[in-house]
């Protein structure tokens, strides 16, 4: 019994040392146009000076999984190294005609739709590889969307720590309370990735979640 306690104690210490040196895979998931890339860009720019990908008002701008390795985030004197993984928005339908509304040529719209469908498949495949997932939701949209529920359900099933972020709180229509009532079991952090609002609280939650990695 005593040997086991001592063994577990040392194991925990070594694991913590090892975890601090190893990159934590931080995934950004959510529906299209919620601001996943904007948030990942904000973090990457603050700590590395470089962005991870381009953003656009047209949905499905991110159609491939994008990475930024060795992003060292410092918060209140503590440091953690992350591999940032920005994923394409998950949707259950993609219609090229939606892109035509943004004055896109038919051929380009069709190509974008095709790439977007492949992006969704790629996002789903990556779920298993994450250590922590940030589910980015648009605070102006209805959170009772099956895609959001499915993503979170999958993360629970895989025992991956999850943080829900309500983005775009700078907008008048934003309603964080609606997101909180849709996901009462989770902490919801309201932020504005565009203006960098409330990111301190976001980092605090990420550091807290990093302790729950299995």
């Amino acid at each position: 019994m005593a040997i086991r306690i001592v063994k577990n104690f040392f194991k925990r210490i070594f694991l913590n040392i090892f975890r601090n040196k190893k990159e934590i895979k931080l995934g950004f998931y959510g529906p299209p146009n919620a601001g996943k890339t904007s948030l990942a860009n904000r973090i990457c720019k603050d700590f590395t000076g470089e962005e991870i990908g381009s953003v656009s008002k047209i949905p499905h701008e991110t159609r491939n999984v994008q990475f930024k390795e060795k992003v060292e985030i410092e918060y209140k004197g503590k440091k953690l190294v992350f591999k940032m993984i920005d994923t394409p928005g998950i949707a259950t339908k993609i219609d090229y005609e939606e892109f035509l509304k943004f004055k896109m040529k038919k051929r380009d719209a069709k190509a974008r739709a095709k790439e977007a469908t492949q992006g969704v498949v790629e996002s789903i495949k990556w779920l298993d590889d994450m250590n922590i997932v940030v589910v980015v939701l648009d605070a102006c949209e209805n959170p009772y969307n099956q895609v959001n529920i499915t993503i979170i359900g999958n993360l629970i099933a895989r025992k991956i720590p999850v943080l829900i972020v309500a983005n775009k709180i700078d907008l008048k229509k934003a309603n964080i309370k609606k997101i909180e009532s849709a996901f009462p079991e989770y902490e919801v952090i309201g932020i504005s990735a565009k203006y960098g609002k409330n990111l301190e609280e976001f980092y605090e939650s990420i550091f807290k979640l990093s302790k729950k990695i299995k």
Partner: protein
Amino acid sequence: MKKKRKSLGRIKGFSIQFMPYSEIRILNSDERIRKILGIVLGNNILLLQGRLLPEEETRLIGDTMAMIGHVKGFKGIELAVIAGNGDDKLFSKFRRKFVNILSGGDLSAITIIGPATVVKEIKRNPKKIELMLNK
């Protein structure tokens, strides 16, 4: 001479199909997804008793995406699950999990799946669900 029908008649293009959970209980994930997609591709709205496993839901989304562009006119699906909102008390949660184990699935839920060409949007909030159809 033919009698004129007084009923509203059938709305062309789709039908609603109800499937009890017993139809998919013994199937594996592959067979469940294939069965569901077979119904949805036939322009039917499926009301499924119970719900799929989270992994099956993502699998369904992934398989749907893989079909867009390969199946003529297919643009994806609309999907919604009506179930408890998860803020049950500890005892209720335990009781629900126990019942789910006995019945082999969450039979208190209803899953609605329809082709995006027919179902424009499934609007939901905690108290109601609205199925918006394409014209």
